[in-house]
């Protein structure tokens, strides 16, 4: 098997104390992200998932343990530029990551910083805008766009850097359902068609359900790791750390508690309806 794109070895981190004791954000986290995979990291607010994200491209450095990005130690300052270029990052608030006041100029920002020649920047900008479906808006001012459009511009800005992995830190938290759907579609396309590794930090169950692999965090520790199907079956565990499961699984779980013979791994509405129908018909 090839080398993982991001590898965390017993990483711990705590924020400096504001008042009293320091706040521990990560405890001995060991995690490998395979190249080309789609990993969702799920957890409630303050569980350490954002801190984890920031370790994946050297924005934060581990206090204990090691983080390797494509074989580079993130503690090595001389490699930071390469680390940033390898693992791109999209944040929650699209307003605060758009630098320029013309869409295409903003998308060009990273390649410009990397000293890419102009014709190549042009090509990358056009391609990135195409991938996120924002080509029409190349000459627009970002502040006149909707939240979902702005976030897609921000994603294009990272794509234009041609990273091997993109870490998204709650990219849909500030969006309405339409904007959320646009962004999620873009993320899926990025992974399926462009084969970019995606790490999606979220607290939405339905977003987590899209991923190939689901990592659940609580109090700075990884408490579950597997496919969404297997992880969502641990209904009690998820509830105990303040998470809910999708309504589909919740309904199946409740019916099982009442004695019906139902599987817990039917995530979509269709699967769930089929499962219930099959169970009721079998009698």
């Amino acid at each position, binding site marked *: 098997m090839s080398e993982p794109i991001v590898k965390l070895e017993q990483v711990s981190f705590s924020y400096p104390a504001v008042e009293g004791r320091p706040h521990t954000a990560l405890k001995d986290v060991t995690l490998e992200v395979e190249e080309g995979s789609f990993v969702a990291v799920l957890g409630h607010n303050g569980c350490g998932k954002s801190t984890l994200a920031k370790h994946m491209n050297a924005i934060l450095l581990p206090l204990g343990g090691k983080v390797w990005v494509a074989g580079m130690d993130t503690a090595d300052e001389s490699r930071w530029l390469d680390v940033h270029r390898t693992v791109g990052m999209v944040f929650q608030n699209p307003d605060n990551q758009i*630098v320029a*006041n013309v869409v295409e100029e903003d998308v060009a920002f*990273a390649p410009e*910083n990397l000293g890419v020649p102009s014709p190549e*920047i042009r090509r990358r900008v056009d391609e990135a805008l195409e991938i996120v479906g924002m080509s029409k808006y190349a000459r627009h001012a970002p502040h006149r766009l909707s939240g979902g459009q702005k976030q897609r511009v921000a994603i294009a800005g990272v794509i234009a850097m041609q990273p091997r992995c993109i870490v998204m830190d709650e990219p849909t938290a500030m969006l309405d359902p339409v904007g959320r759907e646009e962004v999620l579609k873009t993320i899926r396309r990025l992974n399926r068609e462009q084969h970019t590794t995606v790490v999606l930090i979220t607290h939405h169950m339905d977003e987590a359900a899209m991923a190939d692999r689901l990592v659940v965090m609580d109090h700075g520790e990884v408490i579950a790791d597997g496919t969404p199907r297997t992880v969502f079956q641990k209904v009690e565990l998820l509830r105990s750390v303040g998470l809910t499961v999708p309504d589909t699984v919740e309904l199946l779980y409740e019916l099982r508690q009442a004695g019906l013979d139902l599987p817990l791994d039917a995530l979509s509405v269709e699967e769930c309806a089929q499962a219930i129908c099959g169970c009721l018909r079998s009698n």
Partner: protein
Amino acid sequence: MLKDITLGQFFPGTSLVHRLDPRTKLLCVVLYIAALFTAAGWVSYAVVFALLAVAVGISRIGVKALLRGMKPVVVILVFTGALNLFYTQTGTELVHLGFLHITTGGLERAFFMVTRILMLISGTFLLTYTTSPIALTDGLEHLLGPLKLLKVPVHDLAMMMSIALRFIPTLIEETDKIMSAQKARGADFEGGSLLDKARAMVPLMVPLFVSAFRRADELATAMECRCYHGGEGRTRLKQLRFQAADWAVLALFVALLALIVVLKLRFRV
């Protein structure tokens, strides 16, 4: 409303004026201002005005849009006009109102001063209306490039300026939002004495600053993530390149300044 502010506004277009290199436009504005301040009489003003009129015509910006931008300077115009009108006492007296004397000299001077300010503002507005802020800062960075030798951080200044321009609409929107929220809690931003008004600003300014700092922090991280490491080794999406039109326009403006200087020194008109 705050949303009506036109500062730094850019009207995209494809006219010759829009297409000129920003460096050309910046230099032309400098030459234009020099000509305006050299102009000594009716003829010179007419020449400079004709050039401005042609430029505005070509740009298709529209006189209305230009005039709308003048609103904030009306007070200055009136003040300048009045001052020159009443304090210049040359030529024949036209009106006598108590201690106020209006003379032909005063009238002429007031007219020239007001026209000069109007033309100065129109010219610079034409620049910002037809040049995207990015192109403008880019042009400035290039023109000021030689200052780098004197250790002036030209690139950093240009980057700061373009980010500031980018965030003006965002912060205006935010100010509107916080104002509404505090009004919903019974805050009054209009009434009361000057002290009351200043005090009423606290619930607006504190959240605005807190938010601006948060934004700055997040933006800095996002820029770092996108490999920003200062101006060194940076390339640009759009390379600035002088076209034939740029040289022609620039030559025209140099000629304009020369003409105005000659008119002033030789003919005093």
